[in-house]
């Protein structure tokens, strides 16, 4: 098995693990970690695609590698924004649950 195939399948499994984490983790910070796992899975797939495109004396296709650098930085800034939001939410309310409060539902209007 070549490296791209091994790491391509590894990437698929990472995306699966990350998706599992996103669905079941109640804590937003854990969801964020799971999202980062999905992101690194997608990036690993792009890396495998880059390696498959080795030609013209280069070890890999440089275009996907450049896209990867951009993608990793964008994912980092997303994480930074999310962490800042999380901390502010905690400072403001003391908890970080994402579950919406059940609305008090006066049925007065149902005549």
């Amino acid at each position: 098995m070549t490296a791209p195939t091994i790491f391509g399948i590894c990437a698929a499994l990472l995306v699966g693990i990350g998706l599992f984490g996103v669905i079941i983790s109640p804590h937003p910070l854990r969801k964020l970690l799971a999202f980062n796992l999905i992101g690194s899975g997608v990036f690993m797939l792009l890396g495998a695609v880059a390696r498959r495109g080795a030609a013209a004396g280069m070890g890999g296709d440089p275009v996907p590698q450049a896209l990867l650098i951009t993608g990793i930085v964008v994912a980092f800034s997303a994480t930074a924004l999310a962490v800042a939001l999380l901390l502010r939410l905690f400072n403001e309310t003391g908890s970080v649950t994402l579950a919406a409060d059940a609305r008090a539902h006066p049925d007065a209007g149902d005549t």
Partner: protein
Amino acid sequence: MIAALNIGVAALVLALALFTIVARESFAACVGFLAYGLLLTLVWVQLQGLDVALIEGAVGGGLTGVLVIGAAVRLRSTQAAADAARLGMPARMLAVLLSGGVAAAMAACVLALPDPAPTLAPQVSASMAATGVANPVTAVLLAFRAMDTLLEAIVLVLALIGVWSLAPDRVWGGRPALGYDVDPDGILAYVARILPPIGIVAGIYIFWAGADHPGGKFQGATILAAMWLLAMRAGLTDAPPVDRKWLRLALVAGPAAFFAIGLAGTVTAGAFLAYPDGYAKVLILAIEWALLPSLALTLFLLMAGAPQRMSAP
């Protein structure tokens, strides 16, 4: 042999990822994530993407790991509520099924990718001479797909504005991050005095070498930002207040220079972000030099967070 090594690395990566998800405590999960990010660097080396390995180790593993660990420490008291809200077994089974399905579909796609793989490497190699740089990734980043790099610089500034908007109104314009009470004779302060000079040299070297070897401004800027962060966390220096004019100008200077050079290209070379013949390398270096301080500053401020306290008058 190599395949066995790759399988071993992949297995380790997957194990760490799984740990990150199933660990009970958020802090443990974040530390696991930091280790995972650093291990990914090895994966990139195996995939022959050295520029990507550098950025993954610096930003993906290093900065992100530090960010989430810091958050986990501050959010320790929310662990109990999260534990109480854990999903039951049926929901977990469904989640396993669905995510497993997506993973399986993706793996099938990986195996179904065409062979020989379509690639742009020959085109890059053919057109690279016009750009004057020897590192093909730098050529793609700053010549062929320069628009994406410009947009990326804007993304960072925008994320920073978003982070700043989360400051409480009363401390707007103040300094990010809380002050740290650090033992001035402790090991952290010691490391923070020894490491930054070496780090700064290393960062600038990686930036400079990026034109012809793996490296570049993002990697170099991250190291510079990390050194400043270390010094701040050790109490040796403080984050600047966000309403200072010099700070705003420094943040904007890099993208603005990029804009200006791009617009100049419309006049001199016929298209936005085009370089006139023979001047490509000079202009690329100019863009990189202009972007380096802005990037380092932006990355540092993103790590420092929203303003939390007013500076002493």
